């Protein structure tokens, strides 16, 4: 009753092919984006921006990239941290070594480098599948760890291997205040997310999904597995690489290779699994779950402790946070193995039928 798509007739191809074909979806998305751009900057504090919103936005973008590969094309990857690292260090090198390099171009070139790196490490996917591919992509992670620790050229010969950037600006506007950083990240996210949303319904997106569902059958109907898999690796690594560059440039502003360790690869994979494989929306849910929930628990627990008059020690909070976080992951996977995005679509279905469910 609240959510009805029947009765909306499309009279032109144009209307039928728009990204959000259902009126209320379109309105909701426009409102959401407008709120993110206009309302959020007015009501949030600096802490919210720097510690929660900016990491959330960047990690959503990274999860989106991983979702293309894992969720849409079915190629399990544990090398996402490496793709982020390549994006960040490549962007750094372009930014520092080329005089007058604009920030946006450096980020995109970082993404392109990550894309090339992704194709290279995606080659084994033509032969190995499933869990074996996860192990093969783990090699990318270790290779990048080694590369950025050992090859001094990549870190601009910094004695300790840690690099930093400053003086960021886009079209003459400095990216220094938390609001400008947030808006910058959000813009990149919105553009890339809409592009992805569009891409996954295109011919190439359908090829990815066909490969995911059954690669032999897909090959039989004329989809080239090599082309489909490698394009998925390329697109996914590009997005992950741009996210990595933003993580380094905008969020950390000084980083070391450990910032893109295997931990990040695992986190990104969990974001996709918990959020929902093969769902753009799910990437956002997953990122929120993994990025925001631990911080929320970390602050909520002492608050609860104070209410009942107990002072929990710092390590106690930290341990409880991990326990609750782990338990929640298990609980969610049991009640909703298809991820948080599935909950969302179940909710939509309920709204559709209410008040007369069959």
């Amino acid at each position, binding site marked *: 009753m609240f959510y009805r798509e029947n009765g909306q007739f499309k009279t032109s191809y144009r209307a039928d092919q728009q990204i959000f074909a259902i009126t209320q979806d379109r309105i909701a998305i426009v409102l959401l984006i407008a709120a993110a751009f206009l309302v959020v900057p*007015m*009501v*949030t504090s*600096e*802490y919210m921006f*720097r*510690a*929660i919103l900016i*990491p959330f936005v960047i990690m959503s973008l990274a999860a989106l990239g991983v979702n293309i590969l894992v969720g849409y094309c079915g190629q399990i990857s544990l090398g996402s941290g490496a793709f982020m690292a390549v994006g960040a260090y490549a962007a750094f090198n372009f930014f*520092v070594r080329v005089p007058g390099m604009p920030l946006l171009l450096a980020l995109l070139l970082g993404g392109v480098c990550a894309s090339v790196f992704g194709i290279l490490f995606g080659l084994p996917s033509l032969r190995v599948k499933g869990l074996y591919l996860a192990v093969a992509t783990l090699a990318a992670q270790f290779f990048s*760890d080694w590369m950025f*620790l050992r090859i001094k050229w990549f870190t*601009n010969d910094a*004695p*300790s*291997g*840690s690099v*930093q950037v*400053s*003086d960021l600006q886009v079209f003459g506007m400095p990216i*220094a205040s938390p609001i400008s950083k947030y808006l910058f990240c959000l813009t990149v996210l919105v553009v890339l997310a809409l592009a992805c949303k569009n891409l996954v319904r295109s011919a190439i997106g359908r090829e990815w999904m066909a490969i995911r569902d059954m690669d032999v059958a897909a090959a039989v109907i004329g989809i080239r597995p090599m082309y489909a898999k490698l394009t998925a690796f390329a697109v996914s690594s590009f997005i992950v690489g741009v996210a990595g560059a933003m993580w380094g440039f905008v*969020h*950390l*502003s*000084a*980083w*070391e290779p*450990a*910032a893109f*360790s295997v931990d990040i690869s695992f986190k990104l994979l969990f974001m996709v699994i918990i959020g929902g494989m093969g769902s753009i929306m799910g990437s956002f849910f997953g990122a929120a779950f993994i990025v925001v929930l631990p*911080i929320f628990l*970390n*602050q909520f627990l002492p608050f609860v402790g104070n209410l009942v008059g107990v002072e929990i*020690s*710092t*390590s106690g*909070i*930290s*341990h409880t946070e*991990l326990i609750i976080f782990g338990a929640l992951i298990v609980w969610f996977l049991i009640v909703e193995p298809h991820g948080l995005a599935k909950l969302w679509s179940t909710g939509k279905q309920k709204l559709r039928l209410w008040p007369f469910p069959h």
Partner: protein
Amino acid sequence: MKVKHIALAALMAAVGASTFAQPKEQFFPGLPYRTGAYAPNGVPWANGYADYLKLVNARGGINGVKIIYEECETGYATDRGVECYERLKGKHGGATVFQPLSTGITFALTEKAPVDKIPLITAGYGRSESQDGTVFKWNFPLVGSYWLAADALVQTIAKKEGGLDKLKGKKLALVYHDSPYGKEPIALLQERAAMHGFSLQLLPVAHPGVEQKATWLQIRQARPDYVFLWGWGVMNSTSLKEAQATGYPREKMYGVWWSGAEPDVKDVGEGAKGYNAVTLQHGAEPNSKVVKEILEKVHAKGQGTGPKEEVGQVLYMRGALSAMLAVEGVRKAQERYGKGKWVSGEQARWGYENLDLTQKKLDALGFAGVMRPVSTSCADHMGANWARIHTWDGKKWNFTSDWLQADEQVLKPLVKKTAAKYAADKKLTPRTPADCQS
């Protein structure tokens, strides 16, 4: 949210005449790691830090200004450290100073400190080149840096061999934690290697450092004359066990101060006998006056942080000393900006830059015999370049050397050069003498 703020502001304006009253209490945030791979070393440090601040309150505060202390667990992770920094920096009227106890977090906060105008004390760690206060206005590697530690170690082995010229042809191996922290001493050691003609073998160990078989096989083959250990947490005890297994003499092993505390050698016990480590001034000081005072005024009242037995251990003392430096900077700043008044982070920075802890002041604080006088300036944010060596006898750490002073002839050009490169990369202009005066 907004409405609530306005309502709150209106309420405050109605109630108090002085709405812009300064906070009455000085806020010291803490970024410890009591969990994770490095917790065994992080916990005693954090306990010492917290206990000393409690002691200051028990003594009556900083000229009457009480201290509030609040922790936020980082787990040694850079991104959580940044989150904690953002969370704590504005609380209770604004943070006075941050001490991250992690090289990774230090690097990230170095970029944020000048913007937020909060000083950063990295007592004995962090960027060695941040000693140059003309470039690093907000960083204070007080009483020592990695380069100082490495220099002291080279001098120690030179003394053992009978002079710096005797180092020619010797083989030195550096077993280091493969991170910015572990790589810090390389620049200085290479400089020294070129000066004196000894060879330097670099042996990185991946985080967290429990897998070192290959590293020690290399040592077994190369048989270096000395091994320097630049590890942290579980890596240290693993190194010592591997040294024991390969039969490398522990007497020829020298660790940095991060590798020279009780948690590093306790598990190895007798096996670590003879192992040496450089200390930036203090070691384990269970008999010092300040420890007795902490036991009496804090622990005896049941307010102690952590177990009583650990009070006075090496890392505990490091925490207490770090807290003392943080507090004394504020006291110094109060001399200029108003005694018995709250000082902002920016004012505290002036205090750290003009720190002048004489022997008399240290004695009064209970740090007699623990450390030497410290005096900082705009050009020198380190304040003291002394170190000592202590050796594990199977049960406790004992000092086995006199005071060692780092060679400024070696250190200074390196600091200048690296700081200048940082400034050039960041397009910073170093502070002018006029700015230094302010």
